[in-house]
């Protein structure tokens, strides 16, 4: 075999004495699409950040194109030919799409000034490659997460790197966009570019990757050609359990369609509209029922959730709680009425970075945890302890700042925040985003358990599997309207895709 | 080149470009001009530079633009206000400097402005020192000096006048000299601290009465007896200071009167009448001691 493009060996890194990586290794060849897998907190992102100079390693060597290197900043990494899409979106939301694409590599006129015309052309070029049609002069932050994610990918892909690193690029993309992304990856690959691909969607790995490296608890426990593995092998290696255990459990844990939902409607939306692109939403969720919300990007699913949670003022329609009209004017009011909402945007709408895991987890519960404004700390601790165990949150201790947790573990804390208030109605916008396969099933199991206890759930997901297996009913949205309601059992993927796409013409 | 003339008439548009309004002395001065306006037939244009010499020049500029007949200017600083004086002259507006002067090397009374009405800060410091050397009973004077705002001309001058005069008397030594920013609170704080470091102090010279009062409070809080074991001398002649003198807590305060209005009116009228004005219309500053304090407290501000 030829000299590998990248060879990392014996990488060790600890944060404040707690090891994140111990003796991790990774080898990539030119033109290879290589996957890095592992549970939440296994150290994938950390390994990547060590490679690109965001963190300094405690020990270990990095060989790049045959030479030992020591990159000190992301800039150096880029100059060496490594382009990276980090797990947390790292773009500048206030600036325009064009700027976010060309920042740092602006085309210049003869006088050394930025040539905005060329920059725009380059941006359009990148966008069209991903089939995105948008106004590149608008602030990036005004677009949904998925678009931003695509822009980040576009930026990285346009840098002509030797190695392109993608840390969970598809976590907010739907299947169609994932296909586009794969097209781009294949094209890059054919040009000899290597790709490190991190994802918790194992099917994707089998589709796009050549090789795989498995991390467990900061250690590289295996590397192989992906063709030599089955999905079960992969899961077993990640979790450190035998394949047999896993087989017995089945793939998703929602499987709600098996139990018929019999309760009365907890929440009903009648003709809801907001001036945020929600045109008309009709919906009802019964106690003990999971209703899925499906739709393409921009179809307004998030907007539907925001309206139900009192975040956007209604311009038409009304919300009924237990059959009674309810005024839900703010998230605070919604929470008081027993509604929870797990946002898809973990970073800006979820975590309070400097607060601890404990403080983050109990934030929505506080009014019930305190008397005359004083928090009952003993009770708080016991509740947090319970959820850390129940959700398998990997944290040094409950007083660790949440920003130090891995992405997936942050997500679990946030789920815990909403489960803790024991909601009657829970809105989950991409609840298992960035969560590893093991944890995903645990989370799904917990959701199912809540539903069986009578909780009503509105599940927004871009994963068809999750919707089809999990939801009793699926409401399909298009352009801000709820257009169809499909009933399980019996919904097929084709049917769903058809319903999502067809309406556009209607 | 001659001074611009001033025609004699009943009513004048008069500019008074105050430097700042953050201490009782300045406020009394402004009030004096306002009170005089009614009796002297002034239509007063009042500006306040908020302690900035540059803004004071801009203020004078805007008065010139408004077409004032006469300018009364208490220049915040000696040099930086020269452009204001020159521009007023250029616009044919007779200018009287009030309470502080400008750099005589560049602008001169009788040529660039009519006259300077005011007292002599250096002299004030010197007179405070003079009283001290005459009346100090002990044989060793340990002095703490509370300076005015660092870099301001009264602080510099009052320090120079006092320090030069006291240097001639071997009994005295200044152990600490420190800014109290012309304010009571700051004067008190600085005094409290210096008193801890120099417990043997028996004389305090403050550049104004407010700081002197602050020093008295600090001394009392430390269990000292101002007036008995510590002699306090100061400048200004405020009501509180006169009261302190009457109460025996303070030795002397050299008057620095803010009541310029009547003098300004008088001088301007004379100038309009064609009289020659002396380059320096000196204000006769009194000196307040136990002998005359009670008599004058009624007129103090």
């Amino acid at each position: 075999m030829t000299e590998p493009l990248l060879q990392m060996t014996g990488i060790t890194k600890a944060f404040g004495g707690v090891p994140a990586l111990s003796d991790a290794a990774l080898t990539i060849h030119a033109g290879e699409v290589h996957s890095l897998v592992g549970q939440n907190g296994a150290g994938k992102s950390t390994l990547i950040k060590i490679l690109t100079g965001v963190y300094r390693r405690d020990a270990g060597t990095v060989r790049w194109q045959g030479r030992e290197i020591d990159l000190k900043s992301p800039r150096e990494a880029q100059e060496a030919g490594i382009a990276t899409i980090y797990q947390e979106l790292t773009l500048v939301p206030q600036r325009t799409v064009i700027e976010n694409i060309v920042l740092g590599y602006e085309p210049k006129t003869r006088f050394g000034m930025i040539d905005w015309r060329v920059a725009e052309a380059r941006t359009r070029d990148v966008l069209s490659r991903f089939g995105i049609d948008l106004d590149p002069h608008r602030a990036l932050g005004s677009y949904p997460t998925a678009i931003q994610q695509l822009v980040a990918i576009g930026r990285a892909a346009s840098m002509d790197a030797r190695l392109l690193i993608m840390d969970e690029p598809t976590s907010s993309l739907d299947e169609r966009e994932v296909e586009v992304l794969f097209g781009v990856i294949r094209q890059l690959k054919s040009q000899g570019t290597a790709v490190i691909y991190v994802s918790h969607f194992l099917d994707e790995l089998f589709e796009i990757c050549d090789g795989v490296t498995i991390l467990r608890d900061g250690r590289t426990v295996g590397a192989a050609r992906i063709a030599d593995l089955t999905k079960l092998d992969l899961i077993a290696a990640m979790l450190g359990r035998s394949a047999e255990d896993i087989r017995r459990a089945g793939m998703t844990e929602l499987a709600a369609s098996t139990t018929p939902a019999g309760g009365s409607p907890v929440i009903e939306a009648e003709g809801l509209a907001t001036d945020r692109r929600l045109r008309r939403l009709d919906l009802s969720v019964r106690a003990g029922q999971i209703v899925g919300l499906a739709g393409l990007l921009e179809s307004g699913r998030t907007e539907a959730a925001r309206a139900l949670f009192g975040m956007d003022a209604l311009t038409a329609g009304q919300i009924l709680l237990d059959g009674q009209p309810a005024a839900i004017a703010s998230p605070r009011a919604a929470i008081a009425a027993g509604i929870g909402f797990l946002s898809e945007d973990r970073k800006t709408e979820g975590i309070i970075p400097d607060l601890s895991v404990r403080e983050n987890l109990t934030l929505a519960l506080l009014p019930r945890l305190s008397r005359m404004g004083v928090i009952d700390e003993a009770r708080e601790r016991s509740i947090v302890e319970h959820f850390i165990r129940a959700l398998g949150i990997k944290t040094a201790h409950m007083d660790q700042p949440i920003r130090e947790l891995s992405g997936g573990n942050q997500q679990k804390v946030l789920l815990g925040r909403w489960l803790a208030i024991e909601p009657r109605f829970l809105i989950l916008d991409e609840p298992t985003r960035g969560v590893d396969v093991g944890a995903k099933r645990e989370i799904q199991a917990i959701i199912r358990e809540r539903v069986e206890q009578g909780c009503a759930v509105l599940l927004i997901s871009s994963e068809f599997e999750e919707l089809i297996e999990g939801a009793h009913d699926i409401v399909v949205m298009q352009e801000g309207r709820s257009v169809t309601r499909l009933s399980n059992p019996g919904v097929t993927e084709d049917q769903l895709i058809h319903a999502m796409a067809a309406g556009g013409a209607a | 080149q001659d001074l611009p003339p001033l025609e004699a008439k009943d009513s004048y548009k008069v500019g008074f470009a105050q430097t700042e309004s953050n201490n009782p002395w300045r406020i009394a001065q402004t009030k004096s001009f306002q009170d005089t306006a009614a009796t002297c037939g002034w239509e007063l244009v009042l500006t306040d530079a908020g302690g900035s010499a540059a803004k004071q020049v801009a203020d004078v500029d805007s008065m010139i633009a408004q077409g004032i007949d006469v300018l009364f200017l208490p220049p915040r600083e000696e040099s930086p206000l020269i452009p204001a004086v020159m521009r007023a002259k250029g616009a044919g507006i007779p200018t009287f400097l009030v309470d502080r002067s400008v750099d005589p090397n560049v602008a001169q009374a009788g040529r660039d402005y009519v006259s300077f009405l005011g007292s002599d800060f250096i002299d004030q410091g010197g007179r405070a020192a003079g009283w001290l050397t005459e009346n100090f009973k002990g044989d060793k004077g340990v002095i703490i000096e509370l300076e005015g705002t660092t870099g301001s001309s009264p602080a510099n001058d009052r320090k120079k006048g006092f320090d030069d005069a006291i240097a001639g008397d071997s009994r005295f030594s200044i152990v600490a000299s420190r800014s109290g920013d012309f304010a009571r609170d700051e004067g008190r704080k600085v005094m409290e601290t210096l008193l801890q470091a120099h417990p043997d102090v028996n004389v305090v010279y403050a550049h104004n009465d407010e700081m002197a009062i602050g020093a008295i409070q600090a001394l009392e809080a430390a269990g000292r007896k101002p007036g008995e074991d510590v002699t306090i001398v100061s400048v200004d002649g405020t009501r509180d200071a006169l009261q302190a003198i009457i109460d025996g807590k303070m030795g002397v305060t050299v008057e620095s009167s803010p009541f310029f209005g009547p003098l300004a009116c008088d001088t301007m009228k004379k100038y309009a009448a064609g009289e020659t004005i002396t380059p320096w219309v000196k204000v006769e500053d009194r000196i307040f001691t136990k002998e005359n304090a009670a008599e004058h407290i009624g007129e103090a501000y």
Partner: protein
Amino acid sequence: MKRLFGQGHVAVWVALLALIVFGALRYDNFVSAYNLSSFLGYNSMFVLISVGMCLVIMTGGIDLSVGTVAALASVVAAQLSPHGLAVALPAGVAAGLAAGALNAGMIAGLRLPPFMATLATMLAAKGAALRLSENRAVPVDWASDFTKLGMNKIANILPWTMLIALIVVVAAWLIVQRSSLGRTVLAIGGNAEAAHLMGLKTHRAEIFVYVFSGGCAGLAGVYLASGYGAGQPLEGAGWELAAIAAVVVGGTLLTGGMGSVPATVAGALLFGVVFNLLNFENGRGTISLSAHWQSVIRGFFLLVVILLQVRLARPAAKK
């Protein structure tokens, strides 16, 4: 055009225009060559420091040292004024640049929070100015050509200093709009961590804005000495707040990431006009506003402009 007047920037132009019209209608000689040239001369200092502050704020930083740095530069320039403009001007600007470099070192190098780092420089520059000047204003040499800078005007209206300030403004605007440095400045303010991860030269940009701001303050200080006849160690108190207010009234967010250089200039001029109007109002003889009332009115005026800005910016923000 849209860049110039867009978004939350409208309020400041509207207010500026309204006040000028108001002044022109209400007072004689408000729009006279004399008042105009004096106004432009005095305010060129504030335009300069505001532009420097604008770039700093775009990165999400702040520079509290501009006022005392200008004072320091004025002292340096005044002391060197006997050697003529050709020496005193660069020396004053260099003093400003040096102070800016000190800020940059603490902020980009040692990663101190800008507020505290520039607060330290603010104190140190004042101390240095007092020390150099031995606690008193330093007269300039009137015989040299140094005072020409501050005193001379083009066509009797446009002071040289305002012309220079405008050149600096245009340069700053070009840098922000058209250079990668300028775009990096905005990116840092938008999301410093992301800018770093995107591989931008964030250090360089941070150093640049503080040094630039220091240079602007230095230039303002040179003008202070040249136009007002002395190096003034005590001048500059509160200038930083005036500059911050100008920037914010110009529609720039203190959190950084966006902002407008021209609107900042308008903001600086706006506050100048308010002072000027107050002086003229006092000259009308109807009411005489005491200094106390004047500050009440200035605060109230700031409130009105800010509320106007909030109103005008709201609909835009919603979209």
